[in-house]
């Protein structure tokens, strides 16, 4: 690591950079960063992927209130139209956000948020676990691929230098599967300081034990399996990255906005994400999982105490706060909100919904041409649905992922990261 970069990783330098960014605006920050001797400190394009695990009920999130069939299909959980109490937050005559999602509506109004309707996997599985894997690995029905699409991106764009451990992080103690693979990515533990009895650094204690270079010569002993190096490497990444991240993640950035304490850990996770982006360490990919969306029962409708209301309220507030917090860096950041599948158009017997198919994906960021619905709306008419019960898939989710990679992350067009997938000629055109 160059001394310049090291300096930038210390608290004061980070603070200074953050302050500069906030007072001068994103453009200035980028210019000043580009002018710095070490280009790795520039805030690069960032993609944050939030995965709502369990199969999120899209129809009660981005609601087709203008289609009377919606109310037929969901007699007890439908959300009322925009002119009624607790009604949807309309964006046009057909669609509106769930009434709890004021933060999303605001982002829509600011033209930062795009809705890609009828997104999903062309594979028809309704298994959570297959569909999550397919979404994470960027494959369709192919179980031979076990590497996350985000990890493939990191590998394909790696300069091979020591910058690796900072390019991608999971803001949770386990990697989302989209980040698993050969490229080392840190799963940031929920607790961030590792201290011994006398305040000594527990990480240092293991410095020697995990230092041995993978190329170590000498007799291979019992237990020295081929993957032993992988575990040692894993320990090395753990020590190096955590040591450098600790102060960034635990130090309140200057001008930081207050985050809501709802939606499980999402608020805290996005707060850390913002801190690390602002720190100028060159992070490019952040993965976050949020569980609890498998709403077979008591999903609820338009009451503020209903389950879905509370969950979406938390997500909406947290995401809204995040984009407020990174105001000056919005151009650099795209957030994708994905799930493994949508749920049945018709509610089931228990004020809930069962596993479905297509759903509305959200792309948010300063680079996104927001305030617009993308994709072909399949509608709720049975003949146009999937197997007469679910939203059809008219946009392969890999199309969205590809546009994020090529048009936002500036992946070179020659690189193809999704096996057996050809990008359709007509682009969605999500990015300017």
């Amino acid at each position, binding site marked *: 690591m160059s001394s310049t970069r090291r300096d930038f990783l210390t608290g004061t330098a980070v603070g200074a950079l953050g302050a500069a960014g906030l007072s001068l605006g994103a453009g200035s920050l980028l210019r000043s960063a580009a002018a710095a001797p070490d280009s790795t400190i520039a805030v690069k394009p960032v993609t944050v992927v939030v995965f709502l695990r369990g199969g999120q009920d899209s129809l009660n999130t981005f609601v087709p209130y203008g289609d009377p069939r919606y109310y037929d299909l969901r007699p007890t959980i439908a959300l009322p139209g925009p002119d009624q109490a607790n009604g949807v937050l309309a964006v046009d005559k057909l669609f509106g956000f769930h009434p709890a999602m004021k933060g999303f509506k605001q982002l829509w109004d600011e033209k930062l948020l795009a809705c890609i309707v009828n997104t999903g996997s062309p594979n028809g599985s309704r298994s959570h676990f297959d569909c999550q894997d397919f979404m994470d690995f960027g494959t369709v029905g192919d179980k031979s691929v076990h590497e996350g699409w985000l990890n493939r991106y990191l590998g394909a764009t790696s300069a091979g230098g020591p910058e690796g451990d900072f390019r991608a992080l*999971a803001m949770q*103690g*386990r990697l989302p599967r989209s980040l698993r693979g050969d490229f080392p990515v840190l799963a940031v533990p929920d607790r961030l300081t590792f201290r011994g*009895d006398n305040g000594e650094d527990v*990480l240092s*204690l293991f410095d020697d*034990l995990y*230092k041995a270079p993978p190329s170590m010569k000498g007799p291979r002993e019992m237990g020295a399996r081929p*993957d032993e190096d992988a575990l040692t490497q894993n320990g090395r990444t753990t020590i190096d990255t955590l040591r450098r991240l600790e102060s960034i993640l635990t130090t309140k950035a200057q001008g930081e906005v207050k985050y809501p304490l709802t939606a499980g850990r999402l608020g805290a996770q996005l707060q850390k994400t913002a801190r690390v982006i602002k720190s100028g360490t060159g992070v490019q990919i952040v993965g976050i999982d949020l569980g609890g969306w498998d709403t077979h029962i008591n999903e609820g409708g338009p009451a503020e105490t209903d389950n879905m209301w509370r969950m979406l309220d938390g997500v909406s507030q947290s995401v809204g706060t995040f984009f407020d917090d990174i105001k000056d860096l919005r151009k650099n950041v795209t957030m994708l909100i994905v799930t493994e599948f949508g749920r049945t158009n018709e509610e089931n*017997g228990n004020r809930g919904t069962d596993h479905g198919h297509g759903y509305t994906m959200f792309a948010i960021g300063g680079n996104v041409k927001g305030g617009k619905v993308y994709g072909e709306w399949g509608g709720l008419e049975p003949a146009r649905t999937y197997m007469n019960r679910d939203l059809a898939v008219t946009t392969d989710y890999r199309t969205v992922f590809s546009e994020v990679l090529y048009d936002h992350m500036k992946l070179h067009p020659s690189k193809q990261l999704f096996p057996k997938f050809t990008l359709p000629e007509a682009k969605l055109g999500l990015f300017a």
Partner: protein
Amino acid sequence: MRSLAWIVAWGLLGVGPLVAAGADEVAPDAAANQRIRHLLRRTTFGVRAADVEEVKRLGVEAWLDRQLDPEAIPDREVDDRLQGYESLKLSGPEYWRMLEERAPRDGPPGPGEDRIAAAQRRQAELNRLREMAAREVPASVLLRAVYSQRQLQEVMLDFWRNHFNVDVSKDDVRYYVAEWEGQVLRKHLWGSFEDLLMATAKHPAMLYYLDNHVSQAPLARADRVLRGRDEGRTNGLNENYARELMELHTVGVDNGYEQEDVIQLAMVLTGWSIGNAAADRGTFVFREGYHSRGPKKVMGKTVKSEGVDEGEDMVRYLAGHKNTRQFVCTKLVRFLVADNPPESLVQVGVDAWGKSKGNLRAVTKAILTHPDFYAPTNVMTKAKTPLEFVASALRVVGADVESPQAVMTRLGDMYQEVYRCEDPTGYSDRAVDWMDPGVLAVRWQFAADLLNGRLPGVKVDGSAVLAEARQNPEVWEYVLIDALLAGQQPGTLTMAPFRKRVNDVRREVRQMRPQDRQREFQVLATLLLGSPEFQRQ
């Protein structure tokens, strides 16, 4: 002097590397030792030197047979440690009754209490009672993993607990989990798969967790709209359990069924519910009124019976399905042998299943006694899950866990809270799902806190090891390794830096002040528990 005996047996005294490279260079004794250690790593929650000695004394075969017949093994330490765990023996109905009887009644505030404080006290007490099993059952799982003499039973329960996952954070599951653990899993784990499956299918914990208790024949639309907002009424089919029964519990995903089969099976299971009247609260009931009448066909099989028999027939059909054998045996071999299950051993399990009509004792034994179980490619290649790591750390340091709550919290930090897996898949046991960069730091901190007495309710006494180390300062590292890594096979990566640290203080050990020696033990033991080797099994 067991450490010295061990070192001599391994031919290690004064030798640089621990063991020579090729298997053919290993002495017969050492080879036998290696096999014992491999077996113990997979059939216990952490190998102590005493465990190795026990297998040597009994012989591998006799030891395994004894473990396969756990009822015959006294388990007094567990019984002692679980005294005072009031909820473990409560059935579902008993839990409801207990709540009714012990829920604090309204009354005048106590001395020094105003009305608000009194109400808060009552609420806290009510919450405590409601959460009792959700707290005690997972804690009992940990304590048994650490202290039970019936180690294989506890290991296999870990498998079945995840195969048939339920989550106590889902409302009423917490009232049924004690009975589930005791009367479903523990009772049936060595019997036939069919009996186990049937017990899970009819248990309120599963019926509640996967929503089947409210699933009923779809009503006509008009009735549904009419009844829709009526609190507590349900009015239609719920596919959740039917899908997971096929996908996760029996034949495996997309392995012989389609979406229409999910719907048909859900119809078959309509009416499988939980009683809520005074007489049957918390028990399995079949609600005739919920049940979908009319012909049904699942996986090409026409359902010929009626009522509750339909579901029972289908559960039996799925239990006996050839895809179920294949699927469950593949998972078992992955759990016991290798993350990429060797085909040959899966077949061994499938054959034993066929011969024994799905007897789980026979299937488990067939896998563990087959020569391929010991193939070099299977040795030290599985990673410990967080539960396995934590339990084995507590076992090898001989920790005295008086109160497990601090440990349970740490399991949460490692993303494996017992009985709180939200996904019906249960927790994975594959290395790729646990050994992400970053995870090790949490494990290291646990090791450091454990050995430094920073886990409230947990004590570690290193004095015996220290005394032995003091007598043998020249082989101090082996004394420690013998005590803490008895089941592992240390490689150069750990040994070089570890020895260096030991060598630094080797000469001083005899003269050290006790507290310094204690301190040195803490550091070295932390290193061993945090070593790459200790993360493997």
